[in-house]
């Protein structure tokens, strides 16, 4: 690793800066983030911090009166589904980035409590940030990783998804960084098998097929304890994914539902291969675009969306928490 500089100084990079801050414990978190925020405030740079509620409180206390000049958002809400984080950054950058005034952010999407399925999607999110903002300029994003709490392989992955790693105030280029990730959205990452009791139900193009699928989902969702709003969300998301199967997946597919922890999971599989942009479902659709709305909507309505696609077919798993 080469040292870039010993501290953040006053670099006004014209490119997107995506850096991992490796910290151990509360004190190091503040030592790494507060100077980053103050540096931005000194240059009047709009700053958005998306971390958990406890850290927001700690940062507000550390920043004192300056905290009011910083935008805060709770990652537990923004990043419940990791696919919703990039649109939030996009919105902030679009609203605040002007030619002569850079912006900066702190985002901690990965914490020790993330489940295994969420973790993979968070790691995809971190890689996709490099795709999403490859052409952006003058904005810096610092992603804290708690090396005390996280497994070593998670920290290793942070080195692969961030061009620069910051530790004890020193910024170094990451030798492990994958500039061109072979699968930025992790579409080839294997999913654990569905539980044996989750019987597959086949569906195929027909006049009433989507209505029947929605009714099928509704019955299971209610049996599994989803409330009406959450059931409506799951039915909408399933409808859009199944519509993709009818249009692009050979006109047929299978659906399974099961309960996993505190979430209802619905899996839709078909024989088609997804050939969209890696950011599919993470870019807010425009009025004029032809498609790409279904996966966007699914990401907005579900707590987690796992998409896997190979030449053998495509599988989408939609997770909706029973307590959502």
């Amino acid at each position: 690793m080469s040292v870039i500089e010993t501290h953040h100084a006053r670099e006004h990079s014209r490119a997107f800066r995506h850096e991992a801050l490796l910290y151990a414990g509360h004190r190091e978190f503040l030592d790494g983030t507060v100077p980053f925020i103050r540096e931005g405030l000194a240059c009047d740079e709009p700053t958005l911090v998306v971390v958990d509620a406890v850290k927001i409180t700690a940062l507000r206390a550390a920043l004192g009166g300056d905290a009011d000049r910083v935008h805060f958002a709770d990652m537990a809400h923004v990043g419940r589904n990791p696919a919703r984080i990039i649109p939030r950054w996009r919105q902030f950058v679009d609203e605040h980035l002007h030619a002569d005034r850079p912006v900066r952010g702190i985002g901690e999407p990965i914490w020790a409590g993330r489940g295994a399925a969420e973790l993979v999607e968070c790691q995809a999110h971190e890689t996709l940030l490099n795709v999403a903002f490859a052409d952006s300029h003058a904005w810096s994003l610092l992603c804290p990783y708690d090396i005390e709490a996280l497994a070593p392989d998670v920290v290793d992955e942070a080195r692969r998804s961030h061009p620069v790693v910051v530790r004890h105030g020193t910024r170094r280029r990451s030798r492990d960084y994958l500039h061109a990730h072979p699968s930025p959205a992790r579409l080839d990452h294997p999913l654990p098998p569905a539980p044996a009791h989750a019987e597959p139900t086949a569906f195929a193009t027909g006049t009433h097929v989507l209505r029947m699928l929605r009714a099928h989902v509704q019955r299971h969702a209610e049996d599994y304890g989803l409330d009406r709003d959450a059931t409506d969300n799951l039915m909408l998301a399933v409808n859009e994914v199944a519509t993709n199967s009818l249009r692009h997946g050979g006109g047929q597919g299978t659906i399974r539902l099961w309960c996993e922890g505190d979430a209802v999971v619905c899996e839709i599989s078909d024989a088609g291969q997804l050939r969209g942009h890696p950011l599919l479902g993470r870019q807010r659709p425009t009025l004029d675009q032809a498609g790409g709305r279904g996966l966007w909507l699914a990401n907005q309505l579900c707590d987690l969306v796992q998409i896997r696609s190979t030449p053998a077919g495509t599988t989408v798993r939609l997770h909706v928490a029973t307590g959502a």
Partner: protein
Amino acid sequence: MTWADPHVAFLGRGPVDPQVMYAMFRRETEAARREGYRGLRLVADMDWLLSCPPSRAELADFELRLDEVVRELGATVVCAYRTGHFDADTIAEMVAVHPATVGAVPADPGLRMWNVAGGVWEVTGEIDTLNVEVFERALASMSRGASLLRLRASGLQFIAVDGIQALVRLVRSRPDLRVIVEDASLAFRRCWTLFDLDLLLPMVEFHPEPSGHHSARVGSSAAPVQEAR
């Protein structure tokens, strides 16, 4: 009881002209009232169309315009479609543009639309990619010549992205049109907002459900009926 030969009453010697038919309804209603009847009840054997079949879209448009006339006249009209004489898609679309049916429905479209007042249309059922063309054609018919379209959606149990896009295409193609969606479900409103359409298309407004309003569920049973309300 008055018997009318549609080839004479509606067609003359030309193609189907809905205006000729609507004018006949108005004349007959006025005549019935002059004779002391409360209104007009009409049973139309739609086989008369077979000699000069309009397209499915033209037929649906004709039925929706007729629904406005029927509602305005306070008449009751039964449009009898012989299921062996019309294809399943046509039957389904004709069911979609009538508030009620009599007899077994061989092809349920999953949604129904009918006129409830001047410029106000009830939409019930479910809209997805498999019946969205029917919905989109109906939207064009309902809004033709109007500056305000009111859609009562309390009976609309589901609308997919394709249905929302149909509404988006309508208002983008008709900058002069204002649309009010009444009593939409939370899911419908949520989708609209998630696409920022509330900001991008201010000509579409969602109005809350009026207190005490209940939509009647329309039973599916094959002869579509234009009902007076």
